[in-house]
């Protein structure tokens, strides 16, 4: 099976799309994950590619970013004490909204043949279209030759389709994830030496939630990044889940003790006595540092063959 992926997979929660070079055909896969459609185009028959740019800011995107930011801030500032940890919910929304904005202006890529007109979902942002069009163009002109601007003359093809370079994935999500792990470890270490470990618990809870989500998404994109980066993404998701469980348990337990102490009356305790505060902070910092750094190493090793 000599099939080559032309572009990194364009994917969302319930959809993905891919463009493959399969012999003299371009194979287009459009999937909802639950079902997928395959279309084949003979390279010799493709007549035109049309890219239309759409502005990044529309009412929906602005509202999503504004509201998630507003609610995160509102909960962080106004919620009393432990309730501030509910900022995790709009916080995750905010992270997604920021990722969405970071993808830049959107586009529609349409492919024409004599008998069909198909919107190619494999390039939905201008960034992707700017990668996809040169690759497709190189492929098609390598078979058909090039058409002059006035449509009058055709320059014959100069290279074969096999030489056309494909677009390698730049695993931004994975790099952000591993960077986040190292940063998280750094923050925990700083709090440890400043003897302020209890102030890191809320932040850790938020970050662990984000690490679980990002780890799962990163693992889902395993085909693009090599086995070690994928495995470490999964390890991150699993360890973060266990860690969040430990943190959640110690939080609940500590609060119950606190309220019991309040109930008993007498001298009201000044602070919550956090269960395993030192142990969990140290363990958390260590696994974050180890996995984060291994992730970067794995990514660097995986990067080598692409550079050739």
């Amino acid at each position: 099976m000599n099939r080559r992926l032309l572009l990194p997979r364009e994917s969302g929660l319930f959809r993905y799309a891919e463009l493959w070079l399969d012999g003299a055909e371009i194979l287009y896969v459009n999937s909802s994950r639950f079902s997928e459609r395959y279309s084949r185009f003979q390279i010799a028959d493709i007549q035109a590619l049309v890219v239309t740019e759409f502005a990044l800011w529309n009412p929906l995107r602005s509202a999503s970013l504004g509201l998630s930011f507003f609610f995160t801030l509102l909960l962080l500032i106004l919620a009393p004490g432990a309730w501030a940890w509910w900022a995790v919910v709009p916080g995750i929304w905010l992270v997604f909204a920021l990722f969405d904005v970071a993808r830049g202006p959107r586009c529609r890529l349409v492919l024409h043949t004599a008998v069909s007109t198909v919107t190619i979902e494999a390039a939905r942002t201008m960034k992707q279209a700017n990668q996809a069009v040169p690759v497709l163009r190189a492929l098609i002109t390598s078979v058909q030759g090039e058409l002059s601007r006035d449509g009058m003359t055709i320059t014959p093809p100069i290279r074969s389709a096999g030489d056309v370079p494909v677009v390698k994935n730049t695993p931004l999500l994975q790099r952000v994830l591993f960077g986040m792990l190292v940063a998280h470890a750094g923050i925990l270490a700083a709090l440890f030496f400043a003897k302020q470990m209890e102030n890191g618990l809320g932040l850790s809870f938020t970050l662990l939630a984000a690490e679980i989500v990002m780890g799962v998404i990163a693992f889902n994109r395993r085909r693009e990044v090599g086995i070690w980066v994928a495995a470490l993404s999964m390890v991150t998701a699993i360890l973060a889940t266990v860690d969040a469980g430990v943190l959640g348990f110690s939080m609940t337990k500590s609060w119950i003790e606190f309220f019991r102490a309040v109930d008993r009356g007498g001298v009201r305790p000044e602070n919550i006595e956090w269960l395993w505060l030192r142990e969990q902070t140290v363990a958390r910092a260590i696994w974050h540092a180890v996995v984060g750094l291994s992730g970067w190493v794995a990514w660097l090793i995986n990067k080598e063959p692409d550079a050739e």
Partner: protein
Amino acid sequence: MGYVVCGGCAMQVRTANWNAGGAIPCPVCERGVEVVVFPAAMRPVAGNPPEAIVTGEEASCYNHAANRAAAACDGCGRFLCTLCDIPVSNLRVCPSCFETGKGGVLEQVRLTERTNFDTIALALVTLPMPLCWLIIFTTPAALYFAIKHWNDPSPLFPRGKWRQWLTVAIAILQVILIVSLVVFIVRMQGGNR
């Protein structure tokens, strides 16, 4: 060839703006539109096919150079005239794909779409978990899909069986959980009496 339109407002793009080497703003919606046209576009194709090609430069049938293309084969993508266009269930295939299909390549030919029952089963067994009472209905459905479609072929992109195995494992855990819950409740009530 006037089918090239702006993707934002469906306004036709002037031929003078084709192959301009970059995006040109649409006169109606002002979105940037880049049109890249290839030599294949210079082979005109007629809207209603009376079969015979007139100018020798039109898109022609792969098998009959003298006939106009009317469709593309769902198996190999080659252009077909009305003679070569064989309807098979909801597909249109060429004679060679129709023939080779009988020899075992039929899955390949049929494959214009695939339903991923393994993913559906996994989603059914995991997603309703927060609404715990719902799993009484969704877990049997998930098991049904996972087992009924255990050996679904996937010749284009091999998928492995981990989704089905995971579905079955989670379903068993759920059943154990529900049974122990029922036993627990029954015992509690027995103890109260």
